[in-house]
């Protein structure tokens, strides 16, 4: 028995007079996808948290009471009405830094996540579809990336690429973070490629690329979205980790670099635990929100995968 509700059919009226009707427009698919995720309570909480961070990042200049690098205040001040979270050892306002720091984490998270997912999709799908020598080569490369511990690799690459800016950090994170997603997508591709509709597409004269990207890829929407949020989470954590270790540009205000400076100035010993807690909590919350959203992603394309109806 499989009484899964069928996905809401796109409007079946009015077909354009010519040209084959492709899939529904992208924005409509996106809206429907968002509604599916919203329907899951956990994911809804995640979306709300994420939205708060996104808005904070977007309107940072309006929200922050002072500039992020404005060091004209007293040093190591405790929380007060003027400085809700106190000031740093360099005399900057901690709240303003937290607000501006969200920009870095959000941007790096989503950009590096997107890069890693793009590589994972490309490698995973062609690896799953190919057979023979190419598949073996892909297998070797992916396994190589999986066994190398990613943090040391990141540190090595990041130190090698001197004066690494945000773009560089994103690329480094993408390079070290795609392998897991590729492996997951590859298994799903392998299971989908044995389905009759793929053989049927071959019989319809379709080329390999078209089969992979028009027949197989759309059936993996939820996996890809899931692996995107997973990669974004990993990227946010990795960026913070790298900044905390002082790799990358420590003069840029990010949650990671705040932790780095707080650690350098022995914030805990001076009783300024807020200096560590605020950025740390933000990192944890942002990562949690993405993980929560992932709970809702399962519903994206699964009902359609289980298309065959029970007798």
């Amino acid at each position, binding site marked *: 028995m499989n*009484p899964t509700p069928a996905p809401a059919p796109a409007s079946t009226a009015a*077909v354009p007079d010519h040209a084959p009707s492709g899939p529904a427009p992208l924005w409509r698919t996106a809206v429907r996808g968002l509604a599916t995720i919203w329907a899951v309570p956990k994911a809804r909480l995640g979306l709300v948290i994420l939205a708060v961070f996104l808005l904070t990042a977007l309107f940072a200049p309006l929200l922050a009471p002072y500039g992020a690098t404005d060091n004209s205040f007293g040093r190591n001040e405790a929380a007060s009405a003027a400085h809700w979270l106190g000031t740093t050892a360099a005399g900057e306002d901690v709240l303003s830094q937290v607000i501006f720091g969200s920009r870095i984490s959000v941007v790096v998270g989503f950009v590096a996540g997107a890069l890693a997912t793009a590589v994972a999709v490309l490698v995973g799908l062609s690896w799953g579809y190919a057979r023979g020598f190419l598949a073996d080569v892909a297998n070797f490369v992916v396994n190589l990336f999986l066994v190398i511990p990613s943090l040391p690799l990141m540190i090595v690459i990041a130190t090698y690429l001197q004066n690494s800016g945000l773009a560089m950090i994103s690329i480094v994170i993408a390079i070290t973070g795609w392998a897991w997603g590729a492996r997951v997508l590859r298994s799903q591709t392998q299971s989908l490629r044995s389905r009759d509709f793929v053989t049927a597409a071959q019989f319809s004269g379709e080329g390999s690329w078209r089969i992979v990207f028009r027949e197989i890829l759309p059936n993996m929407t939820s996996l890809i979205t899931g692996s995107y949020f997973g990669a974004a989470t990993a990227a946010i954590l990795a960026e913070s980790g790298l900044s905390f270790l002082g790799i990358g540009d420590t003069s840029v205000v990010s949650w990671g670099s705040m932790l780095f400076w707080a650690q350098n100035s022995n914030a805990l010993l001076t009783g300024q635990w807020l200096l560590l807690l605020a950025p740390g909590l933000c990192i944890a919350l942002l990562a949690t929100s993405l993980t929560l959203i992932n709970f809702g992603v399962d519903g994206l394309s699964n009902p359609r995968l289980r298309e065959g109806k029970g007798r």
Partner: protein
Amino acid sequence: MSLLEVTDLSVVYEPKGAEPTYAVKDVSFALERGEFVGLVGESGSGKSTLGFAVTRLSKPPARISHGRIVVGGRDIAGLADEELRRQRQGGFAMVLQSGMNALNPVRTVRHHFFDIFAAHGHVDRRRREARARELVAKVELPDLVLDRYPGELSGGMRQRVSIALALSLEPQLMVFDEPTTALDVLVQHAVMRTIRDLQREEGFTALLISHDLGVVLESTSRVMVMHDGAIVEDGTSQQILHAPEHPYTQMLLSHYADPRAEVVELPGLAVRGGTISTASTRSDDAGQDGAVAPAARPSAVRAGAHRSAAREPVVVDHVSKVYPAPRRGQARVVAVDDVSFRLEPGQSMALVGQSGSGKSTIAKLVTGVERPTSGTVHVGDVRVDTLRRRGLRDLRRQVQMVFQDPYSALNPLHSVEYTLTRPVVNFSDLRGRDARRRVLDLLDLVGLSPVEQFAAKLPHQLSGGQRQRVVIARALACDPQVLIADEPVSMLDVSLRAGVLALLEDLRVQLGMSMLYITHDLLSARVVTDRIMVLHDGRVVEAGETAQVLRFPADPYTVALLDAVPQPGRAGDAA
């Protein structure tokens, strides 16, 4: 007093965010002790929902909305879970269609028995081993099976194990939900015989749920016919067989015939003695799936006309296919063993055999999907077994395939129009408006009208029969010379089969294609093919004219296959 009394039972499906639908509507019936009753209906008739409801195995979103289910004087419709669990011993048990997949793969069969004994505590600890042996013996399995893991047993053996497990609760009522549907033809026959014998010896009450009226009539003494959530006819097997009252029952019965008969006729499919002829009227064949197959239409003629290449035969010459051993130490698998045949242009030939007989492998060899280990395959002048990518693509213009499962042969995310446009664009010069016109012509050809509406639909908005028509239309898009149909109707309801078969046969004659029809169903082979090849373990055991071979089979394997065809007329045997 009846063992089971169901009064005004309704079951409703309440999926989130969708309209509730009543799968079972106000059904009432009673089962007497020791009765063997069949419950027949096609997919969507609510028969399985009813079976799950009376054993209280319904899961959300299905819910018993009202009604009483009285077992042995006790209403179980509203029983709490724990009480229900205790009731299962000595009460009711169920054997599922996928019963062979219901076993835990990491526990031996013995564990399965002991788990049940432990859960209900109805067998003394010291007697458990003996009892387990006794139970497997009842389903005609050796003791050794107890030491095996489910993965080491064949499908038929696993289904027997799940029957024995159901028996271990000493139920008064056994519900069999399509117990043999997922099994191979010959195995199916044997398992049904075991079930019949068991029921007679043990004397439990049995409810056999099946889509196959033939199977049910062969085994049961009373039959209930279900349609659209209601029981439309309830009578003894003899009554149902000889004097069916409801038009739905009559329609179901009309789809059975003996492939050995001199003249075989199915609704919408013509008499086919030794000679070829097609039906003149095809009005009723597709009424069930809301589509009407066209008689010869101008579009069909046009579709066939713009290809005038010489029609050439398919020649398979001493072909063998050997697969490497699945595991170390096991023997290599010889899927096809020295098979030769010639399929003349315009001819239709059946390849029959049970699963594993190599018939699908032959289809793969002919279409170039697999390469033979030895021997050659020619389509006209083209040698298929050495083709590379480019050549294979060209071969697809001539050789197309109709798939077995219409539910997996269409990409769920693509509209019918997209699916049909791709081969048109890939194999012809038609683009834009012209391509679209060709797609609509194809839909018209397979009887899916209004064409504009069907073009816009997604697969899940179509019925099984309609999907299979789309699959056929896709195969015809490039005007192939040879059509390979791999069990094209085995996944469809009985009433839809004749319609799809008639369509295939019509189109084959109209467009002058040759067809290789792969099936285990001898009846359908009899009505759509001229020649037949019977395969057993990769070898051809018998070949010749279809009518001749089926009426006067020479090989014992052919006879066994013929015997396995469900025959409503054999109903008397069981009683």
